């Protein structure tokens, strides 16, 4: 443990954002946290899941759209990270780096932002046979442990992805409403998980960070074999080099990506699809800014 993971993440985040990252998730998820009513901050558009009692009826009447009052959260907030630590996350990301490193970096950014406020942050992950769970804590040691747990839990030997189980588990073990960041890959949460995800959004403010997979054909790099972590089978050079196969595969992946994007948009879940470790910090900050902007517009 030459350098702690959190330090490494901090260095990256600072490099990308200097101080602009600060305050990114301040005032976030207001609707999910009980405002004290003491420190009125802002109005924002009503979103499904917001409490109806928070609606500022006068403002709503003025603007013609449902608005709710936001208050500065004075209490300690709860954050949670739902990390996909299946074998698939040990594979290669679209930019050629490890998806695991990108996941750790994404979790690290959340941890870093939570650390600024002293928020509590917990972890849900693992698999049905070997679930991983960390309670919500805020100490530096805890954050480091959280990142290490994600890093070490994600191995090629782990079971395959089971997003249905993961979402169900996340719903069951985090009874308190949290700002929940789901870190998974481009194929998850699957469109079949729509119901589970919707149920999750009723309790939590959900963000989804998806890490794009490497091309399963890698047609330009025939010197290296391509092996699926779940299903090791030989993909022949002929299939990998074929333009038609590449076209069909790309069409399938685009349809899958778009299906998931559409589902997440429908649930009003902030989400981002990032290429890997090299882009994850930038993409997440952009997502958080867009979220902030959306909130601030109100």
């Amino acid at each position, binding site marked *: 443990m030459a350098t702690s993971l959190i330090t490494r993440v901090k260095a990256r985040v600072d490099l990308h954002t200097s101080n602009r990252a600060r305050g990114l998730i301040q005032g976030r998820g207001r609707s999910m946290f009980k405002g004290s009513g003491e420190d009125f901050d802002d109005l924002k558009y009503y979103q499904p899941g917001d409490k109806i009692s928070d609606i500022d009826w006068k403002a709503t009447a003025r603007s013609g759209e449902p608005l709710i009052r936001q208050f500065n959260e004075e209490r300690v907030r709860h954050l949670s990270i739902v990390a996909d630590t299946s074998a*698939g996350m040990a594979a290669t990301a679209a930019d050629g780096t490890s998806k695991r490193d990108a996941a750790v970096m994404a979790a690290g950014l959340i941890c870093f932002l939570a650390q600024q406020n002293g928020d509590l942050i917990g972890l849900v992950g693992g698999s049905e046979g070997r679930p991983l769970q960390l309670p919500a804590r805020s100490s530096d040691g805890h954050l480091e442990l959280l990142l290490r747990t994600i890093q070490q839990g994600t191995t090629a030997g782990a079971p395959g992805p089971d997003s249905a189980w993961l979402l169900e588990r996340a719903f069951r073990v985090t009874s308190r409403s949290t700002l929940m960041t789901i870190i998974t890959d481009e*194929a998850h949460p699957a469109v079949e998980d729509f119901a589970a995800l919707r149920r999750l959004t009723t309790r939590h403010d959900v963000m989804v960070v998806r890490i794009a997979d*490497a091309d399963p054909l890698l047609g330009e790099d025939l010197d*290296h074999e391509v092996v699926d972590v779940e299903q090791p089978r030989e993909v022949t*050079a002929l299939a990998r080099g074929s333009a038609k196969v590449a076209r*069909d595969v790309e069409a399938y992946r685009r349809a899958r990506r778009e299906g998931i994007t559409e589902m997440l948009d429908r649930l009003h879940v902030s989400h981002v699809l990032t290429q890997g470790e090299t882009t994850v910090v930038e993409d997440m900050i952009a997502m958080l800014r867009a979220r902030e902007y959306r909130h601030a517009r109100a």
Partner: protein
Amino acid sequence: MVMILWWVTALLLLAGLAVWAITFWNRRAMRTAPVLVANSRFLERIPSFQRAQRWARVLRVAQVGLAVIGVLAASMLAGRVADERIETPSFDSRDIVLCLDVSGSMYQYDTEILTTMADMVQDFDGERVALSIFNSTSRTVFPLTNDYDLIERELREASEAIDFDEAGAYAGTQSYSDEKRAAYYDFVAGTRGIDDEASIVPDGLASCGQLFDQAEEDRSRSIILATDNEVNGEPIFTLDEAAEGVAARDISLYTFYPGSYECSSSCLEELRSATEEHGGTVFESSDPDAIPTILDQIQRTQAEEMGATPTVVRTDLPGAFFVLTLVSLVAILVVGWRSR
């Protein structure tokens, strides 16, 4: 079919096996680190991908098969597959006179000699053959000639005609068709010029010796004399004189004696001494089936005398394996290019 350099073939096949074994044991080491990807299970559902996979598999099997065929064919080619024949240099300057005693006791042996000779004629190239038969007098069936069609035809006709048990026919124990009878009497006509005499062997041998022409040419001359030497009558020559006359003309005498009929061992003794004194050879067998072996032996003896040792002649047969190697190499290239 033999392989002249069979050890080269074995060596190449071993080398091929060794190369395969080395690559097989090191197949992990030769592989570059694989790129791990996830969520690619859907590939199985893409028809074009499945088609490409199947096609690639077919091409690979073809490649391996072709490589094996190529290596096998190349090593066979390297081993020099050849046709091996034991060839005796031709006796193209050989004259053979068949001198057969056609008395009643000899008909089985004569038949066999004629049949065997007829079979051998097909392999002749340049030799000349004549047939002379005698009983009390001598008849030349055909003189020395190298018209093998004629020789064979005559020998076969003769062997059929002579297959006639005259004593049996007289005694009534054997019955023959009229045609057969006529053929026999036609064939032996002229061999009974003197009544009440039979098997005048010395005179028969002497007249056989007269059949050789081209005396000035350097040719190998031989007489194959088949007789039981049971002389009934007064010959002009003695057997010894006849043999001497033959030997004086540098003719090798091969005598076949089938065993006594009525005569005691004195007949054989006389025949043996007369033949061997003048450098001839006597073969003795009461079994007609031994005749092919004896004729073969005569052939060999003659070959040795002429200094012609049988040699092994090998002809390379590279055609099939050369084509196979070439085709498989071209096919490997085509398949290899196709599977890129």
